[in-house]
C-alpha cells in the first residue's frame, strides 16, 4: 500500500520531467559544432596570445599585447572603428525610434511605409554601392546639386575626412528598418491603460514620455544599442565594397588590420587582437546590462 502511494507521487513528475534523453541528444550536434569551430579554437587562441611563437611555445605573458598597443596600424584602426561606432550607433538608435514612433501614430498607409523602411535590409549592399559611388563622386550628383542650389564648393566625399559621413549614411539606410521593427514591438507592449490613467491624472506629454514610455522601452533601447554596435563593427563590409582594399586612411578599420595580419599570418598578433576586441565587447555589453538593470529593471516581469 505504501509503495503504491509513492509510485503515484513519482509517476507524473517523471512523466513531465523535461530533461529527457531526446532533449539532450537534440542539443548535441549544435554543441559539438560550436565546440569544434568556436569554443576549442578560442581557448587555443587565448593560449597563443601568451606565447612568443607557435614553434618555440615560450610563455611571454603580456608581451604580445604590449607590442600590439605600440603598433600604429592597430591603434589607428581601433581609433577609426570606435569613432565610426560612436557616430553611427546613437544616430541609429534615435532615428529608428523616430521612425517607429511615426508608424505608431495615426498616419495613413502605415503598412506600406513599414515595407518601404524595411526594404533596404533585404537589398545586398554590393548591389546599391554603384548608386552611392555615383552620388558621392567628386563630379557626382550630390556635389552638382549642392553647387546648383547653394553654390557650395564641391567636396571630395570619398577621399577626404568626409568619407565617414558617406559610410554612416549607408549604414543607417541599411539598419534603420530592423531597429524600427524592434521599437515598434516594444511600443506595442506598453500597457495602454497605464498611459490613459496617467493622462487622466494630469500627467503631461513629457512626463508620460520620460517616466512611462522610456522606462518600458529601456530593454529595447539596450538591445538596439548593442545590435547597432555590433553592426557598426561590421561596417568594414560597406567600406570595402565602396572603396576596395585601400580606403582613405580615416576608414582604415580593425577588419582591414586583421586582413593584413592574416596575410602575414602572424598568429600572435591575430590572437592578441582578437582577445582585446572580445574583451572590449564583453565589457561594453556588460556595462549596458548593468545600466539597463538600474534604469528599467523595475518594469520587467
Amino acid at each position: 500500500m505504501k509503495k503504491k502511494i509513492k509510485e503515484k507521487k513519482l509517476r507524473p513528475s517523471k512523466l513531465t520531467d523535461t530533461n529527457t534523453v531526446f532533449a539532450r541528444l537534440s542539443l548535441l550536434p549544435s554543441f559539438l559544432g560550436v565546440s569544434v569551430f568556436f569554443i576549442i579554437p578560442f581557448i587555443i587562441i587565448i593560449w597563443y596570445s601568451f606565447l612568443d611563437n607557435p614553434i618555440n611555445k615560450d610563455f611571454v605573458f603580456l608581451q604580445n599585447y604590449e607590442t600590439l598597443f605600440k603598433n600604429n596600424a592597430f591603434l589607428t584602426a581601433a581609433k577609426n572603428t570606435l569613432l565610426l561606432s560612436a557616430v553611427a550607433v546613437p544616430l541609429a538608435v534615435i532615428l529608428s525610434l523616430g521612425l517607429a514612433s511615426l508608424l505608431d501614430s495615426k498616419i495613413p498607409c502605415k503598412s506600406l511605409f513599414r515595407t518601404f523602411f524595411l526594404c533596404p535590409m533585404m537589398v545586398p549592399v554590393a548591389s546599391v554601392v554603384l548608386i552611392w559611388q555615383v552620388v558621392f563622386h567628386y563630379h557626382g550628383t550630390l556635389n552638382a546639386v549642392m553647387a546648383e542650389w547653394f553654390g557650395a564648393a564641391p567636396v571630395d566625399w570619398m577621399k577626404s575626412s568626409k568619407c565617414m559621413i558617406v559610410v554612416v549614411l549607408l549604414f543607417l539606410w541599411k539598419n534603420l528598418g530592423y531597429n524600427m521593427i524592434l521599437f515598434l514591438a516594444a511600443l506595442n507592449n506598453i500597457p495602454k491603460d497605464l498611459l490613459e490613467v496617467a493622462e487622466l491624472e494630469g500627467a503631461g506629454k513629457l512626463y508620460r514620455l520620460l517616466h512611462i514610455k522610456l522606462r518600458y522601452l529601456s530593454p529595447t533601447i539596450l538591445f538596439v544599442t548593442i545590435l547597432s554596435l555590433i553592426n557598426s563593427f561590421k561596417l568594414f563590409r560597406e567600406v570595402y565594397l565602396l572603396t576596395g582594399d585601400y580606403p582613405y586612411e580615416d576608414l582604415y578599420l580593425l577588419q582591414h588590420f586583421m586582413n593584413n595580419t592574416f596575410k602575414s599570418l602572424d598568429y600572435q598578433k591575430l590572437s592578441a587582437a582578437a582577445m582585446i576586441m572580445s574583451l572590449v565587447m564583453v565589457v561594453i555589453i556588460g556595462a549596458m546590462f548593468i545600466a539597463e538593470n538600474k534604469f528599467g529593471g523595475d518594469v520587467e516581469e
Partner: protein
Amino acid sequence: MKKLRTHRKVGEKVILAIMTIFAAAASIIFLLPTVLTITNSFMAQSEINANYGVVFSSVTGGGKTFISEKVNLKFIPDIVSFSQYYSVLFKTPDYLLKFWNSVILTVPVVIFQTVVALFASYGFARLTGKLKEILFFFYIVLMLMPYQVTLVPNYLVAEKLGLLNTRWAIILPGIFSPFAVFLLTKAMKRIPKTYFEAAMLDGASELQIFTNICYPMVRSAVFSVLMLVFIDYWNMVEQPLILLNDEQMHPLSIFLSKINTGDTGLAFAVAVIYMTPSLLMFLYGEDYLVEGITYSGGIKG
C-alpha cells in the same frame, strides 16, 4: 468649449499631415537607391558611359566613347534596352559563375544552420539546470562577437583540418553559427509549458512532441530564420576574403565591387540580378521577417 475642441482637432490634423509628409520623404530616401539601380539596369552601355563615365573612368583610365564632365544621375533611361541583361546572361559566363558561387556558399549554410538550430533550440527550451543556462549565455556572447574576433578561431580550425581555400571553411562554421539557435529558442520558449505536459501525460513520445507540437508552433519563426540567415550569408564579404584565396571561388558580393574596373555597362544589371532572390523573399515573406525580428528583440529570456 466646443470651439476649443475643434481647434485642438485641427492642430492634431496638421501634425498628422506633417508626419505623413515626413514618412513619405523618408520612404523616398529608403527606396531611391534600389529603384535607381533597377531603372539604370535598362540602360545601354553607351548611355552609361555618357552619364557615369567619370565615376568609373578614374579606374579604367578613360574610354574612346564620349564622356561628359559631370555625372548625370538618371531616373529613367533615354532608351530602354535589355542589352545589359543579354550580355550578362549569354556573353559573360563569369558573372553567372560568381552567382553560382554565392548560391553554393549560402544555401547549405541557410538550410543546415536552421536544421541544427531547430533541434538545439528544442534542447534549450526543454532542458533545465545551471549548465544549460551557462551554455546558452555562451551562445549569446558568441553571437554578439564581430567577424574580427570569430574569424581567427575559424581560420585556425580551417587550417588544422586542411579546409583552407575550400568552401567548407565558410560553410561549416556557418552551419554552427549560433544566431538561429538563439532566435528559435526564444520562439520555442513561448510555447506554453502545459502543451508539453498534456502531450506527455497522453503518452506522446518526444519525437511526436517535437514534430507535432513544437514544429508547427515555431514554423513562422523558422521561415524568418531562413530569411535572416540567407540575407546575412548572401551578403558575405569578410569570410571569403580571408578563407578563400582563390578569387574564382569568390561570391558575387565581392566580385561586384570590382566590376567598375571592367564592364561598367553591365554593373547595374548584375546588381539587379544579385538583389532579386532576397527581394523576392522579402515580397513573399515580409510578415515572417517582421515576426522574426520581433522575436530577436531582448537578449534576456
